[in-house]
């Protein structure tokens, strides 16, 4: 890499760290239990907003995988989600009423907490509607994966965001507390993904899935990115660049094999398309706090009734199925 470009990326990374520091003053601790974090714990970081319904199952899911401590930023929820989290013994919660967009869609807050508490830990940065799936997850906890990544010298673990959707209308996919989203929205697209490599940060850029197929059929280039790097052995100088799509330093984005083999990777099941979306889309359009003027939510609001399901949709069965389809890979993890 040319020195000038390397230096520019360094400045970009420093700017992200500095922003994270500046925005950290927006966070007010509601329940701080970070003293309970033990060395070697796997930590989960998330920004939430009005997601109380989802939280109980979310916590259960990641506790079962072996997450040691949860660190949440609650952005102005009105549904009591923050209070629920503050009552959990393994959660730390900060609240803020500041702008989500101004905080780079929450990533400044995440970068701050990651740098402050995540250093030296394996950290998982996800949304409340994202569920990590990895090979062997039915018999091996997340710690087994992290230990193996350590032994293999890998610092980051990529995951494809797989949108789940129901067969019928969204209003029929009612997500109650402690309901596994896979049971109400079990379908996904197995094949329609396009990959390219981002020249600046070296990460993969993946688009496709039902959102592109239905909501962005006319302008597929605007479809949301599906490449994520949610699991990282964090160090204090790292920074997420845009959502969890890419990181700096740049080498962390090389979670894919360029020479033909397969590096280990997982998937994030994305349970966005459930009955909650209609309300959410209306609210986000009012707030205009999402990426590109909430263009994504505008598309949903316009086309809420268009079915995502087709006879060629695939019903989710588990990690083995995703592995067979080539959407995740054990990558030599026996």
């Amino acid at each position, binding site marked *: 890499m040319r020195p000038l470009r390397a230096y520019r990326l360094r400045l970009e990374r420093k700017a992200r760290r500095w922003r994270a520091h500046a925005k950290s003053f927006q966070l007010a601790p509601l329940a701080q239990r970070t003293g309970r974090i033990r060395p070697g714990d796997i930590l989960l970081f998330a920004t939430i907003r009005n997601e109380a319904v989802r939280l109980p199952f979310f916590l259960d899911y990641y506790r079962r995988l072996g997450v040691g401590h949860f660190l949440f930023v609650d952005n102005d929820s009105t549904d009591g989600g923050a209070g629920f989290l503050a009552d959990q013994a393994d959660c730390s919660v900060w609240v803020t009423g500041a702008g989500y967009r101004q905080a780079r869609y929450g990533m400044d807050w995440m970068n701050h907490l990651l740098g402050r508490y995540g250093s030296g830990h394996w950290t998982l940065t996800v949304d409340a509607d994202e569920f990590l799936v990895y090979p*062997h997850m039915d018999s091996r906890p997340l710690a087994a994966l992290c*230990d193996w990544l350590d032994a293999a010298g890998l610092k980051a673990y990529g995951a494809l965001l797989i949108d789940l959707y129901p067969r019928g209308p969204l209003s029929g996919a009612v997500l109650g507390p402690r309901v596994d989203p896979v049971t109400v929205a079990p379908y996904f697209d197995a094949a329609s*993904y396009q990959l390219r490599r981002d020249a600046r940060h070296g990460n993969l850029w993946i688009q496709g899935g039902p959102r592109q197929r239905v909501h962005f059929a*006319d302008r597929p280039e605007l479809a949301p990115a599906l490449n994520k790097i949610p699991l990282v052995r964090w160090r204090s100088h790292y920074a997420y660049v845009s959502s969890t799509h890419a990181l700096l330093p740049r080498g962390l984005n090389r979670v894919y094999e*360029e020479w033909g083999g397969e590096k280990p990777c997982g998937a994030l099941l994305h349970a966005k398309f459930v009955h909650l979306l209609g309300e959410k889309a209306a609210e986000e359009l009012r707030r205009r706090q999402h990426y590109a003027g909430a263009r994504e939510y505008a598309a949903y609001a316009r086309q809420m009734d268009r079915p995502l399901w087709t006879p060629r949709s695939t019903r989710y069965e588990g990690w083995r199925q995703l592995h067979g389809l080539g959407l995740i890979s054990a990558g*030599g993890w026996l």
Partner: protein
Amino acid sequence: MAVTPGFVMLAHENLDRAAQLARFLAGQGCPVAVHVDARVPADRLAGMRSLCDGRMAVRFTRRLRSEWGSFAIVRATQEAAGLLLREFPHVSHVALISGACLPVRALDDLRGFLAAHPDTDFIESVDLRIGAWVQDGLSEERFTLRFPLSWRRHRWLFDRWVEVQRRLGLRRRLPPGIEPHLGSQWWCLTRRTLQAILEDPRRREFDRFFRWSWIPDETYFQTLARRHALRIDSRSLTFSRFDHWGRPHLFYDDHAELLVQTDHFFARKIWRGAEGLYARFLDPAGVAPRGTRLEPRPVERPFAEARQLRCEGRPGVLGMGRFPCRWHSPQQATPRPYLVFDGFDALLPGWHRALGAPGRVSHGRLFAPDRVEFADGAPVWTGNLPANPRIRDRAPDQFLIALLRHEDAAQVSLQLCPGDHPQMMAFIARDPNARILRLEGAELLAAFRAGPGPGHAPRLAPPSPPVTAAAARIWHLADLLADPAGVLGAVLAEAWGEAAPVPALPLPRLDGLADFAARLGHADAPRLRAAERARLGREARDGAATLRAVGE
């Protein structure tokens, strides 16, 4: 004499697991000498000692910095083995294990096995000149060069120093009387052999030599056992496998059956959190005795598969973990063979609908500029691949690869036509999985059939690119003009590899095509005119005024 195996255990992490193993072995009447790496903090060692307290048969030895690849590991082993032999005179065999090992067969089986093979040393020991034991890295040079640097800490210097020695031809001479042998670090030696190695009058000389050799824990005992042993069985009693990078595979709860199946006495390396394995194999009642025979069954397949997945990947898989972009081939590889009709759609638009059959998927023009024609006109194909040209054109090569990877039908075909996505026409011509049946001159036919636009001269699409890696059979437009039904029959026979019934297709009349070509000044015009004349002559002879449909 009763057989009592003793154990030398090397531990450098997860000491609670190491302690658990040591307690178990001592509880079974097998003394253990533990060497804990000097880099482990003292408080953690104290924790381990306290766990092992009260067990008379566990000893701790002087702690050394036993860095990977260094002689300190051999020194630590020597000291622990010496201690074991001195303090426990009833120990008849010494096995070297690590803190991350587990016994996967009953210890009574081991006793019986050793008793059934008296005076035998179980140590993998492969003659350097015969066996290719080393998977990746230095082999003979382990002995002939000097390695004073740590590979882990000074990798760059390490490599440069090896290079310098090679350039200058610096080579060491082996001490006389020893034959270099290599093998697994984990062995089980008889008291007699081990004592002979430790009390060899030339030990100082040997130690001095191995001190600067590379990874001596895989050469020192393996070489010296050859000097002293009565009988060597060149295999390890510990099951372990290494990945492509030489790192040991870890074993988890779901590997329990695999470990039992391998039929070794020990397995390495066990993941520290494998509660199920620890509970099962460290329970004296949990492992049923299976006698004194050792019948290892080959279990190479999962390891070979894991290696292949990591190093080569699955053809057609593109995703978060695999995006080949540095391979020396010019394009992404398709995962399976497929058939391409190139140009015939210009003659018979939409004829792919007549080509479908059980086990045979016939797509139309997948790469037409304005549409995607899946078989049966489907709006989406397997995996919800959409018939949306905008989405397809985001990455048309990946579109084709995804289509092929998720297709179960025995045969897949697609149509190309002049004017289709030029990048994909070239991609297919370069694809070794493609079998192309091409109508040369189809761009002329397409322009002729389209008819002249209002007030415009007809525009020819560029001809199909030359076929390179794909397999191809080519017919010329002139052949078609001379005998349309015959050519079409030949095309389909070639496509399905059998004389299949040719579907009834109304062939269009192509009168005037030769004139059309001549008006454009096309180089093939005379050839077309000759073919047209030949057909007209034959038709006149047959008395047939109209072209008959194929298959009638």
